[in-house]
């Protein structure tokens, strides 16, 4: 397990000089040949980064189990109409997990929240032609999207709840 971890990489802060290293790393692991889209997203992950998780327009989805090494953070920025105007991710995991989350951020951008929760792991897996053992990575991406939307909605209802609760509390005190 820890030997595997050594091979695992993170998409956080990929620099040019690190790209070469990462590429080699994948080549060592990739005797089974990943689809070119996996390699592309792995070498040039889209939308890597973070938003302020305390920003009320931001929803944060954090999924995975730190102990097995796969942790995925996907964040969405949502406008008044419920449209996702921006998305970003940070993933600690294998190439397929990074590619899955990178694809997920691309797919959620510009779409309504209710639309993106219908994104299925099978669609991501198909798009990336993931091998059977790597279906779990696409599942993680699906979970991350749902968790981000859930987090945004929880935040929103909490803010609304506070607004509504304040007069009631005042009334009770009075």
């Amino acid at each position, binding site marked *: 397990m820890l030997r595997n971890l050594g091979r695992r990489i993170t998409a956080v802060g990929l620099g040019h000089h690190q790209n070469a290293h990462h590429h080699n790393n994948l080549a060592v692991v990739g005797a089974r040949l990943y689809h070119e889209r996996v390699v592309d997203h792995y070498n040039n992950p889209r939308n890597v980064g973070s938003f302020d998780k305390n920003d009320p327009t931001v929803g944060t989805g*954090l999924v995975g*189990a*730190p102990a097995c090494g796969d942790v995925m*953070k996907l964040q969405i920025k949502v406008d008044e109409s419920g449209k996702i105007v921006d998305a970003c991710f940070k993933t*600690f995991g294998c190439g397929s997990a990074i590619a899955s989350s990178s694809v997920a951020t691309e797919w959620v951008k510009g779409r309504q929240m209710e639309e993106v929760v219908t994104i299925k792991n099978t669609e991501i897996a198909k798009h990336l032609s993931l091998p059977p053992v790597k*279906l779990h990575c696409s599942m993680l991406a699906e979970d991350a999207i749902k968790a981000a939307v859930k987090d945004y909605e929880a935040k929103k209802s909490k803010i609304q709840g506070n607004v509504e609760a304040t007069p009631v509390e005042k009334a009770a005190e009075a």
Partner: protein
Amino acid sequence: MASLLRHLSLTRTRRLLPLSNPPLCNRSSPSPQPSRPPRGLRFSSSLSQITRNLRPTNSRVFCSRSLDLDDAQGPAAIDYRSVLQEDEFHRLADETIQDLQEKFEEIDSHHRLSFRKSFLEYGDCIQIDGLDIDYGNQVLTLKLGSLGTYVLNKQTPNRQIWLSSPASGPSRFDWDQTSQTWVYRRTKAKLSQLLENELEQLCGKPINLS
């Protein structure tokens, strides 16, 4: 209302506190597996960062002792006091995987026999082209030709068996002490039943794995 919420959050904290675990990558804290080699600094710093962020929302505990079917979609540090002992996990998981392997091989040999028979008698039988069973590196692979590939593997850190199915996709099974089976918390599906149902659908013949 606010005080109720406060009370709830306190209760929650109390419930969660004994379960929270030091981040596994925090090398200064005692680790349940002291023989862990140190990880790369980059990884451990980013992971501990994430793990720190996880702790307040930690609502899911990979505990195989009691079956918590509320599968919150948050990541979780693993509480090694409440999960199966590692050797117990290996015993149960190996038993299950070996058992399935034997059953698959039985089906395979039956398939070959009935195929030969059908060749002679044109009888009805299970026909799967490219059926192949392989067990290596603790991973059981069942190839059903064009129908797809099943992969079963142990995920020791969270005491789970992971299944990749061409029919239902990925799922993760925890050991449930009550039913003495591997159960996928999200759907409550039992591993052997799920496989039986899917294989029956795929092959068009009843399959018995128990």
